[in-house]
């Protein structure tokens, strides 16, 4: 059945074509989704929503002068989420036919009824006004209309500069990625939301090796670069080739650099590393599903339990952190989340106090919050939406990055993530960066290699006494894993440079 072709329904229900269709045909197309919802209600659902989507995902990599990866991924499918007997069910398929939509709707209800066998408390949803809306990522140049040759040339040019900096550079990479997701959300409450999200970006990486020692430098960040909701213009703005010389040279210089000392000192973290620090130690623990124990079996829970809301000092007064799905260019920016809640900005930490959670309609109702924070997202139409970060941003204060450096008598500056780990309640973390510098009397004294630092989340953020403004920007993290079955989500983090007093550094010697 899944292998057969049903051209009429395929034509009617391709989300791609939905955008192009007008009048009668479009109404017919929407009809099928409604039929799916009606079928779910008929089978016993008290609530149902359906998401149909199509994703184009292009990966290009040039490695050591050759195209290692020229890949295009096309995904199309749908998922139906239902509530029946106060419990949840979800079923999905790639087969966009009338018969399959009806079957999947009935299957979702059957699953929900099975879920009800262990029900202790019925699931409820925070009330929300059903929207009929459209949203598209603002962009100037459609990356999928840029010739492949042009994209490959940009990568090859940058990679070639990296490689020629030294024979010690044994591996050199240039990366490009572009993703386009078109999706339609409809619910039995009357929501009908069409969205087109575009994001992309890229980066370069040089790996220098000498006598079995490996050092690496990336630009603009590790994990294949930096990414934003945007068109091709964002990739162009990265100007990879212009930065390749410096990146290559630093990778080689690191081989001869001093090791990071093992000590407790003042630590300055630049935005590309601070983004991941925010992600792991504030983003994940403020997800309300974690705090309510819903991720206890896998990623873990959170030290930010509901009894601590508005009572716990998370950090110093310099620490203001928001979840903001509206910021232009953020990798977690959209119009509506995957249960139809409009994008919004909420405070998670205000002047150091823990004041808010990222939530869904169900978890918001559970904690009697005013509304969902709009954080329900799925990585494909065939996956169940979970509470995911949008853009978790550390708001700037009045410092300039250079002033933070000049104001530091003795310390270490760390840049660009290399390794990461944090415990299952998000308290004890340890990060390594690609490069560091010893700071003495307000200036960079010397480069150091293998820098690492560790801490306990509220103590660490409590020691934050400077946050810069002038280098504040959005960093995109396209590889945030969560959930069982696992999903990979794209999220953003806005930040500049920050200083943390008396931090333990140098964990590997």
């Amino acid at each position, binding site marked *: 059945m899944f292998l057969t072709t049903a051209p009429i329904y395929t034509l009617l229900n391709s989300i791609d074509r939905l955008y192009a269709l007008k009048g009668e045909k479009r109404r017919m197309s929407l009809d099928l989704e409604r039929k799916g919802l009606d079928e779910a209600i008929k089978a016993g659902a008290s609530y149902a929503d359906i998401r149909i989507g199509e994703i184009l995902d292009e990966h290009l990599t040039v490695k050591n002068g050759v195209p290692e990866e020229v890949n295009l991924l096309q995904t199309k499918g749908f998922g139906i989420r239902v509530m029946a007997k106060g419990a949840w069910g979800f079923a999905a398929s*790639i087969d966009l036919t009338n018969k399959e939509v009806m079957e999947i709707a009935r299957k979702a209800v059957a699953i929900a009824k099975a879920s009800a066998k262990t029900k202790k408390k019925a699931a409820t949803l925070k009330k929300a006004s059903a929207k009929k809306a459209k949203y598209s990522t603002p962009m100037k140049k459609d990356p999928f209309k840029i010739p492949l040759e042009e994209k490959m040339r940009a990568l090859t040019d940058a990679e070639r500069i990296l490689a020629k900096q030294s024979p010690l550079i*044994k591996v050199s990479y240039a990366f490009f990625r572009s993703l386009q997701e078109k999706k339609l959300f409809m619910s039995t409450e009357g929501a009908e939301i069409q969205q087109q999200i575009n994001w992309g970006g890229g980066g370069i990486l040089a790996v220098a090796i000498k006598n079995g020692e490996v050092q690496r430098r990336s630009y603009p960040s590790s994990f294949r670069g930096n990414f934003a909701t945007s068109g091709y213009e964002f990739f162009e703005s990265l100007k990879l080739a212009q930065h390749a010389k410096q990146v290559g040279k630093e990778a080689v210089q690191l081989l001869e650099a001093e090791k990071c000392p093992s000590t407790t000192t003042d630590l300055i973290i630049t935005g590309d590393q601070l983004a991941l620090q925010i992600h792991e130690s504030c983003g994940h623990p403020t997800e309300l599903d974690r705090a309510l124990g819903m991720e206890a*079996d896998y990623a873990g829970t959170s030290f930010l339990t509901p009894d601590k809301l508005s009572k716990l000092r998370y950090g110093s007064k310099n620490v203001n952190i928001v979840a903001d799905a509206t910021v232009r260019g953020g990798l977690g920016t959209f119009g509506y989340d995957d249960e139809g809640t409009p994008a919004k900005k909420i405070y998670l930490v205000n002047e150091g106090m823990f004041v808010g959670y990222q939530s869904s309609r169900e978890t918001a109702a559970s904690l009697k919050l005013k509304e969902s924070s709009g954080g329900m997202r799925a990585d494909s139409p065939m996956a169940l939406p979970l509470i995911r970060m949008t853009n978790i941003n550390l708001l700037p204060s009045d410092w300039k990055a250079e002033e933070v450096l000049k104001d530091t008598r003795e310390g270490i500056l760390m840049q660009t993530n290399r390794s990461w780990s944090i415990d299952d309640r998000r308290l004890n973390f340890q990060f390594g960066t690609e490069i560091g510098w010893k700071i003495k009397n307000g200036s960079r004294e010397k480069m150091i290699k293998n820098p690492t630092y560790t801490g306990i989340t509220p103590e660490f953020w409590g020691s934050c006494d400077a946050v810069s403004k002038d280098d504040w920007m959005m960093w995109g993290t396209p590889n945030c894993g969560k959930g069982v079955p696992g999903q990979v989500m794209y999220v953003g983090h806005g930040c500049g440079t920050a200083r943390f007093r008396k931090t333990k550094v140098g964990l590997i010697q």
Partner: protein
Amino acid sequence: MVTKRLLEVAEKTVQLALKHKVDQVQAAVFFTDSALTRYANSQIHQNVASKKGGVLIKAVIGKKVGTLRINSLEDKQIEDATTKVVKIAKVTPPNKDFKSLPEPSKWTPIKGVFDKKTAECTPDFRAEKVKDAIDTALSKSRLVKAVAGSFSTDSFAFAVANSLGVSAWAEISATSLQTTVISQSKGSLGYGSAEQHSRRIKDIDPLKVSSEATEKSVKSLNPKKIPIGEYTVVLSPRAAATLFMFLGYIGFSATSYQDGQSFVKYNLGKKVFDEKLDLKDDPKDAKTLYSFPVDGEGVPKKKMQLIEKGKVSAKSICHDSFTAGKEKGMKSTGHALPPIFGFYGRPMPFNVLVASESSSVEEMVQETKHGIFVTRFHYTNPVEPTKAILTGLTRDGTFLIEKGEITKPVMNLRYTDSMLSALKAIPMIGKEVEIVEEIPTPAMKLEKLRFTGITQY
């Protein structure tokens, strides 16, 4: 039979692509049917099922290689995809390292790795088993506050065909039950977890899994803070599996090896680990779950000796056709990832097994004067691949061993250590191999593991 139909699609895709005058073409077609019932706070909160499938097409023109993956099995979509992948190949710069897609080789299916009952498991059956798991935990102790976990049933199938005559397929079933129990007493929370994996649903025993998790959870209440430093450790199979999974990931892929980023490259022929350590990669071993006879390129999977009596060698390295083509005289060992895992990435061992010895966990504890028992590691990540330095934390049951007995729970600890050091002295290896998802492993005792930090719980 799903695989027969998948092979038809693969062969048809190859023929469609050849019409575009490409030199070589490969199609890997896959279908997965997965269901997972997840529970938390002692009730099911997520319950999902999905059918996914698609085609991964590789088109070759000279040394130009283009790849396209569509998550669809519709004829029209596949036909469009063959046109598109050829366009991609035409405008892709040549890859001088590319030699050829693999030639066909003789292979034989592995019997008994697909269980129809597992593949066709119903949501009601999973819900009943989950209810058993929850009820068992709650009935074991009044201190149990919440039960969480997941119960999955899956079937995975793929077929590969290429224009040189490769024609291969594989189909397996898999199921797993994982349970985490949270207990509470006077403001302290205790955590315990256990899991079971099999390819047959009849093997899953929620009572056993839940009982073990509950016992660990209750015993974990009121953990004590201990000084960080080096400790002798007794690792459960689950904890040991994490270390070997990462070792396999960072060490034995030809990509890492050829790039100079694998510890194996700098330790060829050296006894870098304890001589009792024996690690192999073998899809035909009954304990490995992903028992595919062929890889994602349709090449028969070769049994690999990754670590032999503590030594690594160039023979330990896992290749696909691309990495093999970069070395004179080398042939693919059949380690291209199957299409169910996504795009072809680097070749990897994914049927890693650790050989057992003769000890029991009780004996390991009895012969430890001062040490730590680890149930599970959390969020392990490589810090430095050529030195095999890993960091991560303990979780769900960490206990102090004093004078041959487990005496008290301890707060979770962070380890940061080179596996070249930690696995150098392994005084005891368990006699029972436990299937822990990717890595069937026995328990083992390490002479020392370096702990660099401690949590607050």
